[in-house]
């Protein structure tokens, strides 16, 4: 077995190598094969990375600039799963000739190139130990994904991507300012050294950091990374960007990218948990979490666009994860990280399924999508299962993690927070079921439906994989995964 940083570097560089393959591909078939192979290779390397993390613990690379522990491993897992499914779906959505959004070869090359570059920046977020590098990688994700949101170059897509680019960059500027203040706290506690911005150093410094300085830093960091994670009231850009992007990109934005920003917040949370008597993080998490679930609940009730509906669900679930972190303790953090994984696979699957339904119905307007169950039964049943999973119906995994988070709230003295969360969940559930019933059973199925994706082997494998996890993780948590989650909780709580 290979020791040291080999596997984590291999995983990090795979999307770049894949991007190189895409660059030299001449035909449509070569492009699709390069993309699929990159997704599969990433998955292979990921298994070795996770195996190493579980067997030997955290690994450093490039002189401590990069670092992989169980928490990074969890994020790498999420990115790789959603990335693989999105790449496979892309082949049927716009990659093959005759696919519904068939792209010309140059456009397809650019599309795959951007997706793979996007995956690279997200891997860099997961593996960055230096908080400055983490910030740079997150800004990189914004720049790359903004180009993908504007892929269709329609008026609406351009509006959405510009808003996304400007608001997230401005938000991240505040996060950088917060990072600076954190660095100052580190220098004051440890003296100036090159490693003062490393997460591993900051976590160890914990109790020596000046609480006043960290509080100021925290406010800026929350505003910055909270914007990027789509937490209300900083979520304004999110429904636009997620709904105007091409479907596989929506799945990546919602399933993978939001979690990268949430991961940055979790790393910051972990640092402040080491400071005795430091409560500001708890309150910020609680306030942002509650406002996210309630704002999302209201917009879900009145929503009239399928993809925007799913986008507001992302705001809701980011809020739930935030609340889990706020409740804290073993259960709270475990629930939050478990929910991060469950939401990622469920929501990515739903975006992909919803994208196919929108193709078949030729609209994203919830008013106009009716009687889908009779017209396109396969898609409709997938949508129903995905919707129930997202709404937190047992035995799906989202239910399991929401249950853990609520338990944490009730047992660790945050009963009011847990009760408010329950209220929001009830509103969201009612809204979601209303929309589902309308889409599947409502009206008469006279509306003309198109076939949607045809001979969609890749898309079926991608969606099937995600849906199997959305269900399976609720029934049974395999031992390695359970170990990974426990390790990640330990990285946060110490």
């Amino acid at each position: 077995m290979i020791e040291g940083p080999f596997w984590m570097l291999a995983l990090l560089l795979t999307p770049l190598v894949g991007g190189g393959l895409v660059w030299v591909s001449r035909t449509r078939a070569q492009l699709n094969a390069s993309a699929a192979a990159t997704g599969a290779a990433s998955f292979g390397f990921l298994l070795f990375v996770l195996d190493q993390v579980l067997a030997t613990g955290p690994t450093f690379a490039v002189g401590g600039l990069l670092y992989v522990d169980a928490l990074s491993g969890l994020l790498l897992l999420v990115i790789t799963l959603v990335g693989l499914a999105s790449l496979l779906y892309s082949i049927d959505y716009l990659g093959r000739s005759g696919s519904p959004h068939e792209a010309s070869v140059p456009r397809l090359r650019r599309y795959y190139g951007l997706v793979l570059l996007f995956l690279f920046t997200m891997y860099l977020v997961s593996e960055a130990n230096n908080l400055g590098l983490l910030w740079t990688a997150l800004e990189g994700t914004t720049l790359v994904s903004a180009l993908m949101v504007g892929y269709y170059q329609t008026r609406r897509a351009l509006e959405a991507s510009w808003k996304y680019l400007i608001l997230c960059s401005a938000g991240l500027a505040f996060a950088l300012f917060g990072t600076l203040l954190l660095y100052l706290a580190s220098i004051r506690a440890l003296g100036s050294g090159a490693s003062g911005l490393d997460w591993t150093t900051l976590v160890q410094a914990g109790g020596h950091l000046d609480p006043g300085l960290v509080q100021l830093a925290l406010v800026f960091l929350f505003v910055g990374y909270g914007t990027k994670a789509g937490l209300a009231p900083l979520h304004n850009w999110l429904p636009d960007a997620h709904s105007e992007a091409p479907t596989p990109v929506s799945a990546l934005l919602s399933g993978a990218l939001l979690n990268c920003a949430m991961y940055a917040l979790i790393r910051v949370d972990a640092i402040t948990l080491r400071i005795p008597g430091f409560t500001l993080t708890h309150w910020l998490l609680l306030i942002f979490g509650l406002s996210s679930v309630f704002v999302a609940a209201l917009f879900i009730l009145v929503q009239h666009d399928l993809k925007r509906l799913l986008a507001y669900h992302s705001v809701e679930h980011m809020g739930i994860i935030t609340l889990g972190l706020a409740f804290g303790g073993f259960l709270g953090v475990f629930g939050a990280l478990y929910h991060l994984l469950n939401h990622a696979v469920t929501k990515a699957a739903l975006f992909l399924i919803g994208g196919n339904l929108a193709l078949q119905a030729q609209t994203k307007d919830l008013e106009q999508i009716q009687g889908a169950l009779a017209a396109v039964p396969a898609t409709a049943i997938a949508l129903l299962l995905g919707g129930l999973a997202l709404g937190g119906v047992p035995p799906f995994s989202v239910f399991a993690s929401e249950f853990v988070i609520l338990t944490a709230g009730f047992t660790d003295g945050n009963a009011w927070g847990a009760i408010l969360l329950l209220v929001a969940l009830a509103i969201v559930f009612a809204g979601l079921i209303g929309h589902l019933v309308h889409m599947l059973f409502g009206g008469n199925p006279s509306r003309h439906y198109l076939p949607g994706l045809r001979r969609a082997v890749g898309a079926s494998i991608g969606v099937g994989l995600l849906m199997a996890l959305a269900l399976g993780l609720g029934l049974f948590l395999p031992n390695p995964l359970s170990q990974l989650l426990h390790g990640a909780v330990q990285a946060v709580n110490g």
Partner: protein
Amino acid sequence: MTSFATLALDLAAASALVTAWICLVHRRITALVDTYAVQSASLAVTEGLIAYLYSAPDLYLLALLTFVVNALVLPGVLRRVVRALRVNRMVNTYASVRVSALAGLGLLLLAILVVGPVVPYAEVSSAGLLPIATAILLIGFFLLISREKAVTQVVGLLVMNNGILLAGIALTYGLGLFVELALAANLLVLAIVARIFLARMKESFDHVDVDALRSLEG
């Protein structure tokens, strides 16, 4: 010599602040871009003087980098965008010039209130660099949210970045060369991405006012 350099540092930092404020009162885009260039140059001078006063040779390189990227390349890109896309030359605002000017002063006060308690912690405490940097950050943000034109919003973002750069110097002599290089690279990519977008907007709408972007609500 040292006392002269200290005085010069005060002046350069003040110039960075005042030019940020002047960005708020311009009505013409080209003038706004020029002011941003002057602001970046003031920042580069500030960095050079700190390098001299505090014997931090790394900062000379950072000063050079700031001058080349922020004062020369980025304004150059923006001017070309304005010319090539024939952007309407006037800055349209949601907030009037008078309100913007007052807001700028208010943000300076806010910055002093927020970071005042932290000032004694800074490595470079002269010239109230930290409150100035924070004020520049906030003024840049105000510029970004109160202006209609896409080009103006980019300038707002760049002004914010200048504020952060100055804060980095004031607090810690910068974040280390590696991170600084990464930041500069980020700014360049941002400029390229913005350029691509503006060209597409021009193609699609025949103008680059963000005001026309109103179709996504709710």
